[in-house]
């Protein structure tokens, strides 16, 4: 990842934007997927209803 970011630092602004878009969108999906896992496991585990 460090090498990838280092490479981006020396790229054009558009390539930098492309890199941030790819990492950023993937990051959003991964972060929300972790939220999904938490909710899914919690609901599956059950417990006292609200």
């Amino acid at each position, binding site marked *: 990842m460090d090498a990838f970011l280092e490479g981006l630092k020396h790229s054009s602004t558009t390539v*930098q934007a492309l890199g941030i*878009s790819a990492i*950023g*969108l993937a*990051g*959003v999906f991964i*972060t*929300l997927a972790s939220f999904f896992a*938490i909710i899914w496991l919690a609901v599956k585990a059950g417990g006292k*209803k609200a």
Partner: protein
Amino acid sequence: MDGLLIGFTSVSWQQGVMYLVGAALIILAVTKEYEPMLLLPIGFGAILVNLPLSVVWEHEGAAGFLKVLYDGGISNELFPILIFIAVGAMIDFGPLFKNPFMIFFGAAAQLGIFATMLIATLPPFNFSLKEAASIGIIGAADGPTAIYVASKFARDMLGPISVAAYSYMALVPLIQPPVIRLLTTHKERCIHMEYHEAGVPRWLKIAFPIVVTMIAGFVAPISVPLVGSLMFGNLVRESGVLERLSQTAQNELAYLVTLLLGITIGSSMRADRFLNVQTLMILGMGLVAFVFDTAGGVLFAKLVNLFLPKDRKVNPMIGACGISAFPMSARVVQKMAASEERGNIILMHAIGSNVSGQLGSIVAGGMVLALVPLLVG
């Protein structure tokens, strides 16, 4: 005598145009009720700051009241943070807990942020990376996030970015339906989705804001002010023991900060900074961001449908609700579903997706805040 007439002699035609811009925002707020709580104060602020000598901003070396508000609420990002506490107290994640898969539409519909950021760096726009990121964040469809990111990366663009963000949020009922219709068939828009009432443990509602804040803190520490304030407001709501504080956050805090935020944003619309080609480009790209957001959500839903059994397919319009404009987007999609086929109710799924968009937008904002400085300092 010249001193007495200085108000008339020092006004420029550019300031005259800004009075019209301010008046147009006020008219939209009053007659069309487009985000009136923000567009009206923004419009009036734009008129105030462009009056001769701009005394409300600065006069004879002393800061005017709008500059005091700007320094105390926008420069240090305090107003957006306070708004987030209020918004957090208003959000009910219940529909998301009952349909957790909807959270992925909240991720897909952030496409507009990144696509627009990319477009903004291309000729003829040629914005710098920080400026492009600030323009792209209009696609968060989330005013406070747009203000927060723009105030960090491109303070000079704060006025047009805020106006674009709030204006397009108000125009969601006009922007989303044509994009959805373009990308879906009538048959797809008529897909019914069953809704199962699932029990949600109370501890989950309380633990969720804490866990989300911690995850955000580890993934993108710079996003903690955004995520943390939103989740603090939500924790106050869900704790069940701070009802008065929750109501205060949802009402008094929200209204008071919104009042000051709007007029302060308006004060950033000084004619010498606002009236240029750049503003037109920002307004144009804000629209592009909303279109890509909608397309991203819808296309992701169609992609998901390729892998789902016939009786469990999702109505792809749900994907469009993954933007943060809550609850307007969910309402728009439910209205479309009902007009395509009478009795087709997808509102709860739409709300789940829409709530996810609020999470998605702040996470995306956090990603932008974390990544851009790694490349350009």
